[in-house]
């Protein structure tokens, strides 16, 4: 039965996701509702850009279509987070509160892998699709659209950005092992993520630093959008890669520390 460890992990992950998809398919009504919510949210974002551009024709060097591309990236990354990262975070906190994390700890699998992939919010895929759609529309109507290299950089930067956001979220929510209640933290993170709707160059230096190191909105959303609008330099992309690697190592270590301090919800 030795198919090799990597193949093995992938099989398990596939099984976990298959179970999740089956879970979600039980509630088919949700897809229509999700569509409505996603369209409304997108509508508001697009309207906001429209309103701003009723007064000016560029924001810090960003044209209207470039800002629309940013809206697309925001929706895409937000959708990816809502689909893959948030459901697992909430399940982790719920398990810590209810004491059912014990079952995860007793499974013969890497704990971080289990708590990271066992939940999916399938219907948030609508946001991912809408985001891609807006990106596609914006990049094709841009006067000076992204070239092949830019698109490649965009894909890479988005992947790295999601990894960085994953690490930040897990480090933050791992504090639930100590503090237990995380509802407000989630709301605060959400509010900070809203800064990603506009170009990072808008924000004062101190804020940009916070948005890179504290809640990584800049690497998560800003950089992919810059790649798409041909603003991303190879040096910065390499920097993003290094940051992702370092953050992942930190995250893995911190989760280990957090689990070791886990004392169970009840004696």
């Amino acid at each position: 039965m030795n198919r090799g460890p990597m193949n093995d992990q992938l099989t398990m992950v596939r099984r976990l996701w298959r179970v999740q998809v089956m879970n979600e398919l039980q509630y088919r009504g949700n897809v229509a509702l999700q569509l409505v919510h996603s369209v409304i949210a997108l509508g508001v974002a697009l309207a906001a850009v429209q309103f701003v551009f009723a007064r000016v024709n560029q924001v810090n060097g960003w044209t209207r279509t470039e800002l629309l591309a940013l809206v697309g990236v925001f929706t895409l990354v937000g959708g990816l987070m809502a689909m893959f990262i948030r459901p697992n975070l909430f399940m982790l906190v719920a398990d810590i509160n209810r004491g059912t994390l014990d079952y995860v700890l007793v499974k013969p699998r890497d704990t971080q892998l289990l708590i990271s992939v066992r939940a999916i919010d399938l219907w948030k895929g609508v946001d991912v699709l809408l985001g891609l759609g807006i990106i596609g529309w914006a990049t094709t109507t841009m006067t000076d659209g992204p070239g092949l290299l830019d698109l490649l950089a965009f894909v890479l930067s988005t992947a790295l950005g999601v990894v960085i956001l994953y690490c930040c979220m897990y480090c933050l929510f791992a504090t639930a092992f100590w503090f237990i209640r995380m509802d407000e933290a989630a709301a605060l993170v959400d509010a900070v993520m809203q800064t990603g709707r506009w170009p990072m160059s808008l924000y004062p230096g101190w804020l940009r630093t916070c948005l890179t190191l504290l809640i990584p909105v800049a690497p998560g959303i800003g950089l992919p959008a810059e790649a798409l609008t041909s603003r991303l330099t190879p040096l910065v992309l390499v920097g993003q890669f290094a940051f992702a690697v370092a953050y992942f190592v930190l995250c893995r270590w911190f989760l280990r520390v957090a689990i070791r301090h886990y004392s169970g919800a009840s004696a």
Partner: protein
Amino acid sequence: MTRSDGRSRSPEDEVILVEDLVKEYQVPERDAGLRSAIGSLFRRQVRTVRAVSEVSFSVAAGEMVGFLGPNGAGKTTLLKLLSGILQPTSGHVSVLGCVPGQRAQSHLRRIALLMGNRNQLQWDLPAADSFELNRAVYRLGKAEFQRSRDELVELLDIGDLVRRPVRLLSLGQRMRVEIAGALVHQPAVLFLDEPTLGLDITMQKRIRAFLREYNTRHAATVLLTSHYMADIESLCERVVLIDNGRIVADGQLAGLVDKVVTHKEISVTLADGDDDLSDFGQVVDRDGERVRLRVPKADTAVVTAKLIASDLITDLTVRDPPIEDAIESILAGGVGG
């Protein structure tokens, strides 16, 4: 140390070895009131709680051991230390030759944990799907998985239940499928925390019967916590009494009880409701014509004969006092001479 069948143990027999195990928690403490609330912003007061205090014991392969004790005694904490979920503050634990706290994957594949009031199967899906998931998690081959699953389905009689979403099952049905899910990977050691909690009497009996059968077939080592005396009586030859994090007694249930139970109970029905039986023994209870007497064990035969000869009674029963009382007194005073 001798095993329950009388032969002396060698370390190779021991599946579980616990030595001077200690688990302490820091619990924040705060008085009520606004001043204390503000004070707690600056200085956090903590109290150290000893949930498990210098516990030592060992368990041989295939043994079924029951941990009995009042709520908050430390049974669940002990079980979590043995399954590796909690790290000890000090002391040594070894399960199947491994330190459980390290949670080596090869080790985790040989143990199972089941907590009575906490589910781990997927709530909205049929149990069969969760079993398949466990198969992937525990890396079971197709043939061995099917054999194990079929056996469990048969033993627990859940054939038609596994295709229904778990949320639609009754509590007893849910417990049975949960047990199946927990055992499908054929663990060598089972940790059961209050497995019959909340179930009705019939279901409790069924689950106990299953656990006995499983233990016989697979020689799995079973550690079980419960505050239902009936669980322990029915399943475990060996019982460990725990109170305040310490082991108060450890040995065969019958032996423990015998040491402590020094009296027997005689229940009689009086022919004439007014008679006083205090000459015969200590009157424990009087309910109209029914009287309960407590007599020293050695005197039972004599007192019984006297009562029958006295013509004062129309009915008589001799029995041991409830085991709970014996356990309570052990917990209160320890197993003395």
